[in-house]
């Protein structure tokens, strides 16, 4: 038996430390997990995401208590039972819908922050990759959840997206029917996406969040100046009491209190939307029950998928699918197509600054065009924006090769 104090009071700090090494754990994960001082509110977005995920879980649990995953009952169980009968059922639904939409807004801000400050490279590749896996998992979670109310948009989005697996001229109809468990989306389809949405994907997301946090622990977060901080030296200064001179603060309680402040502001906005503007997260077309014999006049995904949808749309089928495929994996490759050695904010990286803002504007343009009907000038603009997106990859290789070492 290991060494331990016979006289420690049960469940006292000493008693727990002897059994669980809680003091070491606390140090490693919180009080001596060092965060640079020179960062701004954009570094709170990770915690905002974690908190929003928490809201999704809690509201989801309550929705689950009345939802019925059956094509004849699903629509009413949501739109009638939960919305009108269940006490505060509307609250859970609106929290769930608003959170599902905002989580993507914050994910995009979080990703673009990472890109702007070069936080995806030189030791931080695993943070980036685990983040991209989270993005994929959240996309799958959002899509499967969108099926559940079994409205017109659920059905037709399900039809169109599962058809992508036919892979164009490869005509993998068998694969599509296997994914659906039917010739068209039906009961089998609804139940399996329900299972994925409420069990499997949330488990994967929780695992990935733990992994994402773990990938941060050794490289530490980047900072506004891309400065390569000597964390051991900075931590020594801080612990000696030279808090002013030290370049870092401990995660807990110092940085966490800043995170909590940003969270507070965020929640004011969040609940304002939940109570007064929840409709932006609910598509009116989805308030018609699914009908396999009537396509709605316009089919479009939720706003956060529009940019990649618009990359699919302007091209003929096969090239469209290939472009779409590239768009899905492009961001995974970022740490390797950026050939420059610099870790610095974009405004110190010359042409990269312009590259960054063209990327942002192009993604906004694709998002707007994805929502407009595919006609006339919109088609042309869509094609141009999609081509610009695809060219941004090779352009980045070139720009970063030419970039001077700072």
């Amino acid at each position, binding site marked *: 038996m290991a060494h331990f104090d016979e006289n420690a009071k049960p469940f006292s700090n000493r008693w727990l430390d002897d059994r669980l090494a809680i003091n070491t754990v606390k140090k490693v994960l919180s009080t001596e997990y060092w965060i640079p001082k020179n960062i701004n509110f954009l570094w709170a977005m990770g915690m905002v995401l974690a908190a929003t995920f928490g809201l999704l879980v809690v509201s989801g649990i309550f929705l689950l208590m009345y939802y019925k995953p059956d094509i004849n009952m699903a629509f009413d169980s949501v739109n009638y039972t939960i919305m009108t009968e269940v006490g505060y059922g509307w609250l859970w639904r609106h929290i769930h819908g608003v959170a599902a939409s905002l989580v993507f807004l914050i994910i995009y801000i979080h990703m673009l922050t990472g890109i702007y400050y070069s936080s995806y490279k030189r030791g931080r590749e695993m943070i980036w990759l685990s983040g991209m896996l989270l993005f994929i998992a959240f996309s799958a979670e959002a899509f499967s959840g969108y099926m559940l109310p079994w409205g017109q948009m659920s059905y*037709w989005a399900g*039809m*169109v997206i599962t*058809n*992508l697996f036919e892979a*164009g*001229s490869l005509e993998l109809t068998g694969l599509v*029917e*296997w*994914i*659906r*468990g*039917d*010739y*068209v989306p*039906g009961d*089998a389809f609804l139940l*399996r996406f329900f299972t994925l949405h409420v069990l499997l994907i949330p488990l994967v997301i929780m695992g990935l969040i733990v992994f994402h946090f773990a990938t941060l622990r050794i490289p530490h977060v980047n900072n506004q100046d891309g400065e390569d901080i000597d964390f051991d030296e900075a931590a020594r200064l801080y612990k000696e009491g030279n808090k002013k001179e030290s370049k870092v603060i401990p995660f807990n309680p110092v940085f966490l209190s800043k995170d909590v402040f940003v969270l507070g502001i965020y929640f004011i906005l969040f609940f304002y939307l939940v109570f007064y503007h929840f409709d932006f997260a609910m598509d009116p077309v989805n308030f018609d029950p699914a009908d*396999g*014999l*009537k*396509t*709605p*006049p*316009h*089919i479009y995904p939720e706003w956060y998928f529009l940019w990649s949808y618009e990359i699919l*749309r302007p*091209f*003929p*089928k*096969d090239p*469209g699918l290939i472009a779409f495929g590239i768009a899905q994996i492009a961001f995974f490759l970022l740490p390797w197509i950026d050939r420059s050695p610099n870790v610095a904010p974009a405004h110190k990286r010359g042409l990269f600054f312009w590259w960054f803002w063209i990327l942002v504007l192009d993604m906004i343009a694709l998002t707007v065009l994805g929502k407009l*009907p*595919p*006609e006339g000038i919109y*088609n042309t603009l869509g094609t141009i924006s999609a081509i610009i997106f695809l060219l941004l990859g090779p352009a980045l290789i070139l720009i970063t090769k030419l970039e001077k070492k700072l």
Partner: protein
Amino acid sequence: MSSRRDFMGMALGGFTALGGIAALYAMKRSWDPLPSVAAAGFTTVDLSVAKENVLNVQKWRGKPIFILKKTSDMQADDRDVVVGRARYHVSIGLCTHLGCIPAYLPAEKLFRCACHGGEFDTSGRETFGPPPSPLVIPPFKIDGNKIVLGEEGPEYLKMKEAGLTA
């Protein structure tokens, strides 16, 4: 000693892999369409009541089926289903791009898909936009004035051999 441990490791690994493969197979099979779904029956439609240039939509295996009686000024096509002297366009009403249901516009005599703007003529051939191929012709059998969807009659097999059904 080490070879004995290697053997144990390989035996354990081998059996584990086998079990894993068996489990994957079971999982794959669990997602297959149920027999009741796969055997989903046949649909019989009476063609004699069809009106020219009016799209009749039927349901077969959960999918919409387009039946359009052609007017005399519409281009005849090898893909037409001929019953007596009438010509019909019969197809699965799902866009060959990504599966939306195109709408029939009787005035313009064409099908237009709202999803990404694809268009098809009255023989179901793609004429504009992303659809890569004509509307698919479902297996059918002509039975007097009726058409049975899901059964492969001689007319269908002839079309299929000529590569006209997709």
